[in-house]
């Protein structure tokens, strides 16, 4: 690792040395999970950004854009904060982006105003993050945004009694409250609400508990990663699927790289999410081709790459609007209300919340041409972040 940092540093010094005075370099610090159990998503940040740069060049006007990567590794607020400090003070970055985990994003937030550095959140999905600083804008999603449509689906599919099982941390609790509020407002009953510790790997007892509660549908959220697989398997192997209990989740539970491991028994699982790799549009097709060119493997692509791709778009727009000067207010003003067609569908930046407004899709795991994928069944147009909109 230190070798890599060493190389990055050496390259940075070399470029600073060689570049002529009139052509400046604007640095963007990316904090992502580049190693560790969640490395897949950090790599997806990089794929998304590389794909954007490959398509649109590494220059905005006369300004050379340089991305500097740092490794947040795991939910580690103290480390993320010191990485952000290092990026601001030593690397003199004008923008910070990335941030896979909510606690990490929250730890960086207090630095932004003082340093006059805007932050583009490319994953961390707790609603409250954007409220922590006026310089935060988010291109990923929030739990509320993806969960409110899920509760509508549960109602539409005539679920009467739902058991909620979520991971016991910020986004999980967001998902639980969002589902509960929406579903109960529609007249449904929540029979069981379970918060599972993040490090749970044996879901047998939890499945038994859900079964004993007599629920006819489970709504779940776990962060994409190793535990999701165990949950889905326990659901199938403990006979809940066979006895007709439906499983509804946010898309985090059935990310595309996990589908082959879940296997054919995963067919029929419903989820609501803002991006499916199989989304059918010309923009997505071109995007996927660019990702592969940037070095991604087709089976490794996740929602983090599209958030990074759109995040890079915002950064380029901000640099253009400020003409490379450090002016966060002007930069933010330039992207508020911005509208474009992303690989995930039409999106816009909500001028009030600075969170992305986007379609949320209901998808079902299906097998097509021998490959498992999330097939979009229904579209919920232009969903705001319901977590912020509720106030």
């Amino acid at each position: 690792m230190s070798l890599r940092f060493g190389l990055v540093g050496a390259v940075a010094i070399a470029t600073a040395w060689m570049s002529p005075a009139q052509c400046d370099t604007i640095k963007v610090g990316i904090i992502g999970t580049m190693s560790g159990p969640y490395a897949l998503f950090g790599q997806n940040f990089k794929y998304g950004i590389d794909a954007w740069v490959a398509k649109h060049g590494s220059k905005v006007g006369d300004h050379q854009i340089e991305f500097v990567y740092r490794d947040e590794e795991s939910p580690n607020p103290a480390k993320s904060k010191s990485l952000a400090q290092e990026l601001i003070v030593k690397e003199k970055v004008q923008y910070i982006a990335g941030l896979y985990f909510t606690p990490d994003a929250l730890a960086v937030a207090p630095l932004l105003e003082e340093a006059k550095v805007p932050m583009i959140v490319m994953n961390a999905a707790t609603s409250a993050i954007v409220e922590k600083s006026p310089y935060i804008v988010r291109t990923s999603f929030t739990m509320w945004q993806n969960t409110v449509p899920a509760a509508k689906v549960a109602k539409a599919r005539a679920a009467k009694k739902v058991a909620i099982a979520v991971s016991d941390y910020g986004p999980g609790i967001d998902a639980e409250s969002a589902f509960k509020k929406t579903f109960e407002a529609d007249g449904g009953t929540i029979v069981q609400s379970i918060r599972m510790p993040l490090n749970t790997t044996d879901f047998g007892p939890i499945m038994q508990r859900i079964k004993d509660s007599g629920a006819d549908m489970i709504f779940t959220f776990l962060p994409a990663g190793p535990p999701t697989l165990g949950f889905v398997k326990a659901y199938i192997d403990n006979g809940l699927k066979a006895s007709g209990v439906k499983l509804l989740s946010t898309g985090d539970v059935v990310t595309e790289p996990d589908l082959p491991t879940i296997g054919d028994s995963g067919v029929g699982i419903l989820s609501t999410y803002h991006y499916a790799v199989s989304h059918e549009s010309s923009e997505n097709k071109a995007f996927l081709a660019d990702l592969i060119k940037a070095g991604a493997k087709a089976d490794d692509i996740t929602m983090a790459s599209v958030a990074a791709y759109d995040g890079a778009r915002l950064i380029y727009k901000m640099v253009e609007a400020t003409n490379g000067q450090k002016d966060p207010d002007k930069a933010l003003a330039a992207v508020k209300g911005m509208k474009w067609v992303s690989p995930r569908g039409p999106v816009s930046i909500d001028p009030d919340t600075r969170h992305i407004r986007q379609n949320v899709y209901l998808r079902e795991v299906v097998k097509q041409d021998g490959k498992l994928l999330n097939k979009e069944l229904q579209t919920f147009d232009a969903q705001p972040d319901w977590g912020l909109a509720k106030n």
Partner: protein
Amino acid sequence: MAWTGLSIGLDALSYGMVLFIISIGLSIMMGLMRVVNLAHGAFAMIGGYLASFALKNAGYPLAIVLAVLGTIAIAFPLEFLLYRRIYRKSDELTQILLTIGIAFVIIGVANYILGPTTKSIPLPPLLSGPVDLGFRMIPAHRIFVTICGVCTAGLLWLLIDRTEFGIRLRAAVDNGDMAESLGIKTQILFSATFALAVGLAAFGGVVGAELLPVEPFYALRYMVTFLVVVSVGGAGSIPGAVAASILLGLADTTGKYLAPEYGEFFFYLAVILVVFLFPNGLLGRRH
């Protein structure tokens, strides 16, 4: 209510058996060879990876055998170059630094070569899916794991208590110099025991993969749990490890069923109580 109790008991038993199969190798290393092998989890993980690889071309039973033998083959150079130096004599700090270093190296290599995602160990049709027990459905592999655990415990007990190998091994453990002067080749005995411990780790890593999914951080993620089983059961004691695994499995599973939001509270509560009452573990010998 009675059904619920039985149902929790079944889940606890199978989870406990997974813990047992993996931890017993660690217990043997600690009890008989006085090595705190923090790379034990890493060997279990290697077993899992090899099985996942072997399953692409081979059947499940063959994959288990290949994984166990493959892991022993990978571990052997480590034994020859490193572990051999720390049997019985060296201080704990050397052992811990050495073995945790090995664990880190294995994690790094696994992450680099195989990537950070979970590797699947697909079960044969016979072992996948639910089995109806009348009062509840239980995953077939949990029954399989329980049987594996019981067999492992029985065979190990026979091996160490009833065979020539066991007698020699216990002699070498109790008084190495005396055993050596009686013509017992302790070095070979210890190497064989190391291979046995690693093989058991690999076996547990494969059959337990449904409950402890195989990914690079497996090596350290579950290490604390394995160490806890050994210290609660008493290092080197097979019945102790069985008792500890079932007790801890029960505490964990009951906690998860009745109050999942408490996380591992009940697991560690059980640990604290046992260690408080039995400082040498449930059936451990005083050293």
